[in-house]
């Protein structure tokens, strides 16, 4: 796979994972970009083509974790252009609520649920995160329960 092909195939997925982590479009774009810069730099050394997805998602997750070092991002209020955007999708409110709920989880849960929603196999998630498959399964179950609960409360309001 050439870099261009990887970029086209994975940009959207990586962006969503970053978006699940920070829930801020511009910030997520920045992290996605950093992820692809690492991919671009390290691609010549990468040999195991069958596991390219795992490799890219590991880099993306670690780039997300690195954000712990730079928590002091500009507050969203400084990005007025984003507030003026009109929702194009009728589900916009629900989508943003989902991403908001995910961003409220702890760092690890955010990464795990993002990978799960991206339809990545639980065995692969286990390899990406470095915990056992059964642990992944338990965590996903708990996170989904939490999200369902939040949606229930949200709908009742």
């Amino acid at each position: 796979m050439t870099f261009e092909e990887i970029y086209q195939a994975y940009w959207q997925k990586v962006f969503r994972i970053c978006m699940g982590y920070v829930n801020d479009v511009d910030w997520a774009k920045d992290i996605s970009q950093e992820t692809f810069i690492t991919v671009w730099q390290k691609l010549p050394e990468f040999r195991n083509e069958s596991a390219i997805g795992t490799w890219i998602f590991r880099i993306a997750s670690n780039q997300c974790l690195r954000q712990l070092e730079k928590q002091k991002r500009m507050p969203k209020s400084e990005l007025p252009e984003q507030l003026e955007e009109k929702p194009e999708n009728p589900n916009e409110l629900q989508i943003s609520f989902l991403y908001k709920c995910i961003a409220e989880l702890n760092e690890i849960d955010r990464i795990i649920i993002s990978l799960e929603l991206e339809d990545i196999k639980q065995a692969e998630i286990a390899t990406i995160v470095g915990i056992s498959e059964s642990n992944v399964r338990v965590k996903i179950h708990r996170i989904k329960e939490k999200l369902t609960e939040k949606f229930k409360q949200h709908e009742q309001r």
Partner: protein
Amino acid sequence: MSSDNFKDLWNQQSTPAPDVKDFLGKAMQLKKKLRNKIILLNLLLIATAVFITGIVIYFHPQMITTKLGVLLIITGIVTFLVSNNRISKDLFKKNMDYSTKEYLDQFIRLKQKQEFIQKTMLNLYFILLTTGIILYMYEYASRMTTAGALTTYGVTLAWIALNWFYFRPQAIKKQLSKMNEIIGMLENANRNLEA
């Protein structure tokens, strides 16, 4: 809300990928910038060394203390620049494709090491610089009157003392609190991984 619905909602979030050519242009630029930074830093190091050597040659110091002083000052400056050069940060980038668990472990270890190095380096820098200045001044002060020499040393030592007792602890405290905060967050993430 079922989990299929979550997936459905999740997938509706999208943003157009920036053009790959734009992206590659940016990546190249970044690489160039990084290289320029390294070149600039090295030039700065060389210029400092040349400048100080120039002073030594120009003033023809006679005593070994002066030469030793200059050597210590140069060592101090080099130590400081090198430790601030984020060498560890660049090394760290190599392991971006570790699993989350390995990455976190390494991240925590690195931060703890960085915390130690920063503190040690800052102290070392001050000690080298102070000793260097005191030695360097000796030759010139010995040619002054006693009062002149005392004043020169007095003012210099007062300035050094202010740095040592006021600015140094402040700098260390600031670094420490920032570092501890990050380490705390990382350890918390690590606990969540195990839970």
